[in-house]
């Protein structure tokens, strides 16, 4: 008996073409209104960061002592700070700092966590046990405390303040992501296709990177977006404490530190606007991350 060929009408699949972008956007707003709002905030931030040079005519780092403490108005939309710098301009350039630090730290931290978490699940046994206990030690510290400790450790060796902040924020993310990814990877490890991959003679590295990692992309992407928000917040906290980005670079946390306490009554705009910027950015990334989780995890999808 010759096995008959099995055919599926290819026309059926042509019907399932991708709808135009506008339809996708409308669909997204209808199904994930909060997620769409989050995405909008994120896109605005990215737009601000990329086109910072065209959006403002004031130099964010240039002191102008004749223009100190000007209230928001036609000249300076959001007012000026105690050094006479335009606050809107500093917020726009601050978005650059926040996004660079946020994305780089979140991406590197989550990716390291991804590889370590999947490896831990794949090898299992004693390696997994020891590795998880080490991760426990890291996770015992609140993010900000660990970041502070790392700034203290690397502060002497790393000259560049932005790089230092990135290192201090990246490392605490690794165990967080490793833990989440590991739990997904444990289920993947038991799937027959991983056994099949071993039966095909693939190396451990190939199975981990080419066969398991693609299967845990959903939790990984969710962690990345959540981490960007957290990283922005951490960067602002470190800068506020004077351990992060240093003057005169425009950074939101730094703007809070300079003027917040002293001028809270006489010039509240100095602290209010950067504070709002931080709030919106973190809010936006968190909303986007939540929506992404709903979309990527079918179990949480609403019926």
């Amino acid at each position, binding site marked *: *008996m010759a096995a008959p060929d099995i055919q599926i009408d290819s026309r059926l699949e042509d019907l399932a073409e991708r709808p135009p972008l506008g339809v996708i956007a409308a669909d997204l707003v209808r199904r994930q209104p909060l997620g769409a709002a989050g995405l909008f905030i994120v896109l605005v931030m990215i737009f601000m960061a990329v086109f910072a040079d065209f959006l403002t005519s004031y130099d964010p780092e240039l002191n102008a002592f004749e223009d100190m403490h000007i209230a928001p108005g036609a000249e300076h939309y959001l007012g000026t700070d105690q050094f006479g710098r335009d606050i809107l301009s500093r917020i726009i350039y601050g978005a650059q700092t926040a996004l660079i630090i946020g994305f780089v730290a979140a991406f590197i931290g989550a990716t390291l966590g991804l590889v370590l978490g999947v490896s831990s699940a794949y090898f299992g046994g004693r390696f997994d046990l020891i590795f998880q206990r080490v991760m426990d030690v890291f996770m015992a510290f609140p993010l900000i405390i660990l970041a502070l400790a790392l700034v203290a450790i690397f502060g002497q060796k790393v000259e560049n303040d932005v790089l230092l902040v990135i290192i201090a924020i990246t490392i605490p993310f690794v165990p967080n992501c490793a833990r989440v990814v590991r739990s997904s990877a444990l289920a993947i490890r038991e799937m027959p296709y991983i056994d099949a991959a071993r*039966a095909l003679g693939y190396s451990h590295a190939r199975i981990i990177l080419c066969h398991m990692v693609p299967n845990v992309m959903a939790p990984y992407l969710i962690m990345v977006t959540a981490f960007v928000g957290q990283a922005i917040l951490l960067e602002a906290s470190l800068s506020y404490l004077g351990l992060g980005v240093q003057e005169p670079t425009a950074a939101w946390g730094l703007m809070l530190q300079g003027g917040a306490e002293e001028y809270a009554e006489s010039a509240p705009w100095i602290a209010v606007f950067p504070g709002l910027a931080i709030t919106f950015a973190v809010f936006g990334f968190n909303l986007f991350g939540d929506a992404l989780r709903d979309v990527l995890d079918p179990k949480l999808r609403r019926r």
Partner: protein
Amino acid sequence: MAKLLELEDLRTQFFTTAGTVKAVDGVSYDIEAGETVGIVGESGCGKSVSALSILRLVPDPPGKIVGGKILFMGRNLLELSDVEIRKVRGHEIAMVFQEPMTSLNPVLTIGRQITETLEQHMGIDRQEADARAVELLGMVGISDAERRLKQYPHHFSGGMRQRVMIAMALSCEPKLIIADEPTTALDVTIQAQILELMKDLTRRLGVALIIITHNLGVVARYADKVNVMYAGKIVEKGSARQIYHNPSHPYTIGLLASVPRLDHKRGTKLVPIEGQPPDLTLLDQGCAFRPRCRFAEDICTREIPPLEEVGGGQYSACWQKDKLSQPAPAAS
């Protein structure tokens, strides 16, 4: 013909908190090039573990191959390094798994999964591998292969996925394919197609095949030789013809009586084997099948029966084998 694979006294054990499970306990058999061998038995009798042991794929911990030899073309696979055994896996000995629905990685295209094997073992580049993948899919009866290669496993039905698995197993021109219950998850008509396909391809390409199954019908039709396993041991082995026409172990007799046969009168009742397979941590010095055996006598509680020839190359591990066995027909 030269022996392709020889198992000598293979012992695989699982060290669990409940005790040591002797999943494979002194199994010996051999396979010649191009031959099809069936391994039959109930769930949990060591069929799959003995097969996984050949490729050293038994999960460790808790499993461990504690003794024996696996000679594949003269080399003892148990003595190879990790890198060397990886070159055997998929290249010289390939496996087809039980669950076609989950044996393919859902996030990789079919084409990638086939070409990856080729690139790994055959050392050919992406373009050549693509061409070969098209050819392989054609060989297992999947039409429109070029478009199919770009698709993901969820575009395929169970039977087609198993065809893909077979294509992958054949891709590196192995000497031996181990099929671990290749049709259990498929419906009956597809089962027949898949088995025919495997039989046809292995015969055409001269590949030896081990079919692990609990379906005696499959074995009767497709296997040259049959090993019947019970509680980690081979209790009877011989040609398919001998096993069917002249079973000489009570377990084989029981298995045959418990499946419907076309050559029996309609309305004949099926006779199941009473009881459950034994707990492999609690085996004693007697025959493991004794509690379920109609022919059990005193000696069965005292000593494990050895696997001895009953005639014509047929072996049985039973104290009563001479009473059970009819005059042996000529070996086929």
